[in-house]
């Protein structure tokens, strides 16, 4: 309760007080070396994801059957990749694991960014409309969320994914213009676009619930009533008075939800429903590694470490931001 009144007061003078909470948080975050390390790691991944061709030594789909399942550090002496050093080893088709890992970064980061963006945009607007709407509107909107929520998430995503990818197998003349655009978008991203749609379709539910709860809490407080009394409209109250107060918990929740998006894509690719080969995803690379576990454990090792480290970094960061933004835990 103390916490909420402090933030409520912040709402009256948004410019100075609320910024200082963020500044406090930022200062606290910068002091923690682990947090800085996580942030640097994620920035590095983003840079790599933006320009994988700069970092990858060779193409992700270049096969070399004479150099199958080579251990890390092997120098290729025959085939198309002669003279190339497999720093992370090669997979069962003789492809360079390091290069594939680097291109796989693009998939995971894209899912992280797009998943978060969709969930944020849809979830925050839906939650705000429900929370700030009349009791009737709120009731209907949240019942809809509740119903979709009862559907096991992963099952819904798998179903959607199968549904969407089946479109691309149809002859082009059987689908409308919209369908053709969607399918061409999907094939140009190696099947990634439909993964976005499937994950995006379910990811906003949690955010909508969180935002709605926060709005219900804040909308009865004095600073909102004061804003209404002086004649602020609905959109102004939502945008200028409610949003700044609820954005903190939303960012925390979103950061902590990102590992789930990355994992969902990895799992879909693991069972062969995600991005289409030869496009590498960490999930499909883990599947490759799992099947070669007995003879070539390094094929599993590198994508497994990359996936776990990335999820760990987001979890660490989310936890740290939560602690930093929570006045109760500040020392």
């Amino acid at each position: 309760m103390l916490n909420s009144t402090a933030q409520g007061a912040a709402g009256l003078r948004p410019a100075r007080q609320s910024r200082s909470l963020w500044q406090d948080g930022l200062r606290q975050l910068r002091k923690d070396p682990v947090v800085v390390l996580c942030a640097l790691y994620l920035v590095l991944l983003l840079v790599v994801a933006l320009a994988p061709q700069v970092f990858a030594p060779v193409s992700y789909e270049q096969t070399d059957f004479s150099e199958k399942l080579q251990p890390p550090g092997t120098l290729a002496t025959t085939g198309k990749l002669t003279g190339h050093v497999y720093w992370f080893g090669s997979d069962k088709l003789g492809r360079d694991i390091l290069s594939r890992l680097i291109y796989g970064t693009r998939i995971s980061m894209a899912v992280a960014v797009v998943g978060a963006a969709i969930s944020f945009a849809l979830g925050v607007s839906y939650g705000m409309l429900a929370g700030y709407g009349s009791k009737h509107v709120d009731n209907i909107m949240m019942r809809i969320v509740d119903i979709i929520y009862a559907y096991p998430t992963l099952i819904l995503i798998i179903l959607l994914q199968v549904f969407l990818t089946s479109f691309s197998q149809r002859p082009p003349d059987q689908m409308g213009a919209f369908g053709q655009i969607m399918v061409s978008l999907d094939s140009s991203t190696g099947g990634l676009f439909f993964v976005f749609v499937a994950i995006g379709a379910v990811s906003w539910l949690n955010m909508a619930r969180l935002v709605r709860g926060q709005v219900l809490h804040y909308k009865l407080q004095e600073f909102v009533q004061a804003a209404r009394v002086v004649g602020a409209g609905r959109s102004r109250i939502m945008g200028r008075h409610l949003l700044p107060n609820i954005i903190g918990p939303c960012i925390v929740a979103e950061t902590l939800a990102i590992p789930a998006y990355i994992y969902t894509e990895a799992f879909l690719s693991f069972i062969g429903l995600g991005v289409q080969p030869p496009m590498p995803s960490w999930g499909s690379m883990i599947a490759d590694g799992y099947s070669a576990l007995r003879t070539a454990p390094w094929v599993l090792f590198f994508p497994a470490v990359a996936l776990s480290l990335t999820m760990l970094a987001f979890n660490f960061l989310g936890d740290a931001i939560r602690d930093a933004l929570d006045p109760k835990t500040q020392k």
Partner: protein
Amino acid sequence: MARLIVRRILWFIPVFFVITGITFLTMRALPGGPFDSEKTPPALVQQMEAAFGLNRPVYEQYFIWLKNAAQLDFGPSLKQRGKPVAGFLLPALVVSMQLGIAALLFALVIGLPAGIIAALHRGRWQDRSATLVAIVGVSIPAIVMGPVLVWIFALQLDWLPVAQWVPLADGFWPWLSHLILPAITLGAGLSAIIARLTRASLLQVLNEDYVRTAKAKGLPHRVVMLRHALRNALIPVVTYLGPLTAAVVTGSLVVEQVFAIPGMGRYFVSSITSRDYPMVMAVVVIYAFIIVFANLLVDISYFFIDPRTDHAQ
């Protein structure tokens, strides 16, 4: 209390219609059918589709399905011809439940003590290491944890068999030794969540006035902890068992893929790709029912742990 239960059960009705409706429509919108293959002549495919009523309008098929489902008849599998879906799914459900319960037990046995120890030693090394292990545990996904565990314990140390499922009927030890790795894979992340939840909740309770009062009365430390602190600290943990069951359900889908376990999740993925409509519908209904039922149980248990719940309504 009774009202709450009735409301929850009534709530299942719209949920049921929406979930089955979405699944039914999506499955029927998929191109291809269960009988399509290179070898079968189109005339025969049409005949078989007619025999299973697949040539009727979709809404009619849905109503027929609803009518049968109301009598717990989920129809025949379209791939293993003639045999009822239930004949496949009941054994699969038993397998999935063994896995799920083993994972939940593992999660509770590891997570609860870890969270309690961390909270009681707040800020000291026990707390810091438990928190660190928990966040690492949450971050290692099952598709990594499973293969890595197999590599360590089955291939390198040779302590446990490589992924495969052995039914309980084949003996207790063979069954258990095959169950351990999948259960740990599924339970590890959950135990980390439980540990964090328990720690946070216990820390909050330890600051409450009634705990201070109990200490001030001179009650022994053990009594204060068990009767006053822990009992109340467990309320959020129990509430979380609902979402946790959902996590076990979807998690088991992953773990069953990784360890090739013949559970519900495996049937689900394979029956989607083979367009075995009745099988997909039955799996989705069972999953949804498990989740709704778990939430109902949580609501009821909540009432027993915290009698104030009833008055608050």
